[in-house]
């Protein structure tokens, strides 16, 4: 056996494949399901459009309802403000005095006061249920009720 190796000998088919390696066998393409794909896309598109329109309609409906409520609140606030003004006008001391004189009432006599045996839960006698913080703010009940 010689120590020198013989050159590699290539067979013809190998040489031809080597010369034509930029070419390849193209298999017959698989049949595409174009119709199914189109249907799916149409359905998806339709669902998307329907969903968008539905959501928009719902949003518009909710918005209209919100507008209605806001208008209701605005009207209620307007009526409330007017009622506050009306009450204040009706409580006007000049009006009360004129109305009292008109129905035949007269000015009170000399001021007298009674010596009571015990305090009554009237003005100036704070009920025990009120906290000191509340008691320190005599306006709070009136103003809180108004708001």
């Amino acid at each position, binding site marked *: 056996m010689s120590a020198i190796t013989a050159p590699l000998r290539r067979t013809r088919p190998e040489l031809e494949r080597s010369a034509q390696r930029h070419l390849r066998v193209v298999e017959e393409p698989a049949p595409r399901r174009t119709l199914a794909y189109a249907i799916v896309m149409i359905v998806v598109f339709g669902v998307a459009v329907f969903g968008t329109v539905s959501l928009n309609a719902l*949003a518009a409906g909710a*918005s*209209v309802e919100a507008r209605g409520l806001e208008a209701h609140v605005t009207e209620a606030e307007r009526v409330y*403000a007017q009622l506050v*003004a009306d009450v204040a006008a009706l409580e006007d001391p*000049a009006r009360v005095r004129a109305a009292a004189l008109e129905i035949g009432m007269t000015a009170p006599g000399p001021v007298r*006061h009674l010596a009571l045996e015990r305090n009554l839960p009237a003005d100036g006698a704070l009920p025990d249920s009120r906290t000191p913080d509340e008691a320190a703010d005599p306006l709070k009940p009136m103003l809180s009720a108004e708001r």
Partner: protein
Amino acid sequence: MPSASPRHSRRGAAVLRTSEQVAVRRIRWTLAIFAVLVLATTAKLVEIQVLDAADLAAVSERQRARTIELPATRGRIYDRDGDVLATSVQAATIYADPRAFRATETPDGLEVPAAAAAGDVAAALAPVLSQDAATITERLEEDRHFVYLARQVAHEMGEEVRALGLPGIGVLVEPHRLYPAGPLAGQVVGFTDIDAQGLQGLESVYDGVLSGTPGTLLLERAPGGLDIASGVRELSPPAVGTDVVLSLDREVQHVAELAAATAMEEYDAVGASIVVTEVGTGDILAMASTPGFDPNERGDEDPSDRRNRAVTDVFEPGSTQKALTIAAAVEEGIVTPSTTMSVADTISVSGSTFTDSASHATSQWTVTEIMERSSNVGTIQIAQELGPEQLDAYLRSFGYGRPTALGFPGESGGLLRHHEDWWGTSLPTIAMGHGVAVTLLQLAHSYGTIANDGVAVSPRLVRGTVGEDGRLSPVPAPPGERVISTTTAAAVRAMLEEAVHGEAGTGGLARVDGYRVAGKTGTARKPSEGGAGYSNQYIATFVGMAPADDPRVVVAVMIDEPWPFYGGLTAAPVFAEVMQAALVALRVPPEGAGDELPTALQLAAEHAARIADAEVAAADAAARAVLEGGPGLVGDAAGDPPAEQAAGVADPP
């Protein structure tokens, strides 16, 4: 099969290489073109998204966004008990777009006819707006885009106009400032302009607190101008204005205004002012000036009627100041209430002669008697011992010569020359309340110091503010400043009590049933308007406090040019009326032990019986008059016959 020649092989390889290179070249060109397009697109994106982003966003927002300003509701003004003195309601404003009433052309040259005839629209609006149709027509034909037809009218009127559905006519909602009690405390509360900006009084002083912060509503709109229901909707709610709670008491204010108006009419005066303050806190319970005005109906009143004269107008306090002169002398240890002095009815100072109001023999009077009799001569003698420097210093300590800490617009500080500028007759003149001028509030403040055991507390009109939580945030109480000692204050109060309850007191008409009152009358001639000297017109005053031993209320009354002109005859009874109402409002019990229930019931029954008797007597008189007039005829309470009867009598058969 023969193999290809080397030449053919080289040609084939060259062909293959050429084909591959062409393909590669085309791909590269395509990539290059795509790269250029991508770069161009990226550059444009950077330009749009980064460089011009702000400008484009603004343009976009202008095109589709609509920002509506939401006006803040102005805060209310309450009295000390929470009763509303000023509030805001929603009113309607009627406007028109005059372009709708004339034919126009579009930019494309198309003719747009008028939506309606101005005359027809005006005729429809006139009865609703209570305006002349011709006036409305004139406004509708103006060459403008927007005209007001009626501002801040009743909401119902706006709804009525809206229901008419007239083209070119619109209705806006605007806040309208309303003063439910009308003229009550009008000069103190002040008023706003039509755009709710404070113009006068506390509305002006606290405008920043009351006005609040407007909000915004951001909407998206379609090209047609309609709102996009599902579009962006950002609401920044307006911050409601803070409410202001005053120290005024509505009931006391009403009584004070009524008393001032009655006094003005009864004494034929040109004006009257009353100030009521609470001792210790400096709270002003009432501040009334007549003539007044109704802030709801401005326009026809005299502008001077809007002035809060109790703080803007000054006058010479007259004898009411003697209490301050004597208080200074007592504080300095110069005299005591029981110090006896020899008092003649005249005294000469620097060539001028000063007299008492009534001639009398030279008498030995105590300082208390000098106060009780309101002796000019005795007061001048005390002032001479006190000296001008001390008198000047004490008067300034009592609040003369500078405005109070109230901060009310137009408040005057009065007139008090520095003692170094005084001349020979200044000391005696100023000691008895002439040659010096104060506001009524300053006078009430000085007496408040005496009532408050010698500690001066600045008067205040605002107790606190109320935010959206409904809680009152009190204004810090003003610090007190001692002017005279507690002992001196008590001594002066005792002397002032004698001026009301003493036998020779000049203020007897200031007595209040059930209470001891301490006070002083004052009568001063008004300076001539044209120059030096005094006119023949007078200012009548009374200042006092009650209960005398532990004062809770100070009332100061000033009547301008009354007849009779004596303060003890005109201002004192007004003081009594107002003081009684103030004591009742503050629930100050009358002095002495209260009645037992049976006694109180019996007294009440007697009072009711007296009223009933008076009513029965009046009814009897009316019935008698009717009966005397003949059966079947109806007369009024005054006994005047009706027209038919009168005609019958005048037309005998």
